[in-house]
C-alpha cells in the first residue's frame, strides 16, 4: 500500500491500541509493543479515523510553529506509512 494521501483518515488497525507500561503510554499490537514519545505520540493521538492527514498536519503545524509545515506533512505521511507496513495503522 502506498503512502497516505492528504485525504486519508488514519486509525489504529484491528487489535492495536494504547496501553501503559508503568507511567509511559505504549502502543500494543499482536506479539509486541512500541514506545511512542514526542511527535510520534502527538500524531497517533490525532489518528481517530475522523481527521484527515492534512488536518493532522495542520494541528501539528500550529503546535510546532518553528517547523516547516511542508516538512511536517512529509514526516506525518512517512511515520504513518511505516506503521501501516507493520499493520499497526490503517488508512
Amino acid at each position, binding site marked *: 500500500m502506498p503512502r497516505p494521501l492528504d485525504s486519508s483518515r488514519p486509525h489504529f488497525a*484491528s487489535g492495536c491500541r494504547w496501553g501503559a507500561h508503568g507511567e509511559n503510554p505504549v502502543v*500494543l499490537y499482536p*506479539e509486541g509493543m512500541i514506545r511512542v514519545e514526542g511527535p510520534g505520540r502527538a500524531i497517533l493521538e490525532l489518528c481517530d479515523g475522523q481527521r484527515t492527514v492534512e488536518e493532522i498536519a495542520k494541528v501539528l503545524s500550529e503546535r510546532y510553529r518553528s517547523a516547516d509545515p511542508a516538512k511536517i506533512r512529509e514526516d506525518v505521511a512517512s511515520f504513518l506509512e511505516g506503521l501501516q507496513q507493520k499493520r499497526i495503522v490503517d488508512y
Partner: protein
Amino acid sequence: MIPNPLALIAEITHRCPLHCVYCSNPLQMISAKSELSTQEWVRVFQEASRLGILHLHLTGGEPLARADLKDLVEAAHEAGLYTNLITSGIGLGETRLAALVDAGLDHVQLSFQDSKEEAANWIGGAKAHAHKVALAEVIRKFRVAFTVNLVVHRQNLDHLEEMIAFVEQLRPDRMEIAHAQYYGWALKNRDTLIPTRQQLENCLRVVGAAQERLSGRIRIDCVVPDYYARYPKACMGGWGRNLILINPSGRVLPCHAAEVIPGMQFDNVREHALDWIWRDSTAFQRFRGEEWMPEPCRSCERRSEDFGGCRCQAFLITGDASATDPVCTLAPTHHLIESVQLQVNSGGEKPGEVAWSYRGNPE
C-alpha cells in the same frame, strides 16, 4: 537489576483435539484434573499485570478446550493485559468468538498445518482443516487482530509458494511462517521434519519475495530453524529476562521446554507469588545473567545478544544444560549439529514413507 517480564504464555490446558507432530508441549503432559481453576488463573493474571507484563498469550493444548475461556479473557482484559488467543480454532464459531471479543480479546492467532486439506489433516492427525478455512472468514467479521501461523518443515516446504497464496486469501493482518523448533514432539520427529539446506535457501527467497509483494497488506514474519544458523537464537530473549510460561498445573517456567533439564525445581503459583518466582526463585536465577557461562560464551562479544543460546537445546543435544548451545559454530560440540545436517542433506525418505509419532493427549 532484574528486568520486568513483558509477556506471559499461559498454557491453560494440555488437552487438544489435534495431534500435531511438532507440538511444543512436553512429552509428559498435564492431566485435566491437575489444571489451575478459573479463580487461580484470574489471580495469576492480576499478579502478572502488577509485575509489568503487557501481553498474555492464551495457549495450550487448545485453549478453547476450557469452558471458562471467556471468563479468563475477561479477567485478563480487566487486569490490563493485551490478550492473544493461540488456537487451532476447533471449538470456535461465531457465537463464542463474539463473546470472546466482547470480553476483550485483542488478537486471534489461527494455526494452519498446510494449504492442502489432506496434507494438513495428516500433519495434525485430525480432520480440522476445513473448519479452520471457514473460521478464518468468520474472524474477519470482528474487530480483532488476525494472524495466521503456518508451521513449515521438510514435508511441506516444497510448496511454500502455494501455502503463502492460500494464507493470503484468508486475509489475515499478519502471517507467521514458523519453522518447527526441535523440542518436545518436534525433536522426537526431527528426522522427518528438519528441512534440507536447499529447502531453507528456497524458503528464504520465497518469503522475501512474498514480503515485498504483500507489503502493507499482510505483515510476514519468518522464524528460521536454528540448526542452520551460524550463531544461536537468543532463546526467549534470554533465560528469565522477558518472558514467563505457566503450565496447566501452575508451574512457572522460563520457556516451553525447560522441564527437560534435570535437577531443576520449578515453583508453582499455587504456592508462591509470581513476583517472588520471577525475581528470587532458584530456577529463574539459574541461567540469568552471565555467571553460569562456560567458554567460549564467557568471553564472546555476542554473549549479551544471544545469552549463550538455548539451555534446553544445550541439554537435549549435549547432555549438559550449561554448555554453549551446540548450534553455535563456535561451540566445542557443534559437530553434533553438523552430523544432523549431514544426515538430512545426504538423501532422506521419499514422500509416503514418513513414519512419525503423533502428539498424544493427557489423561
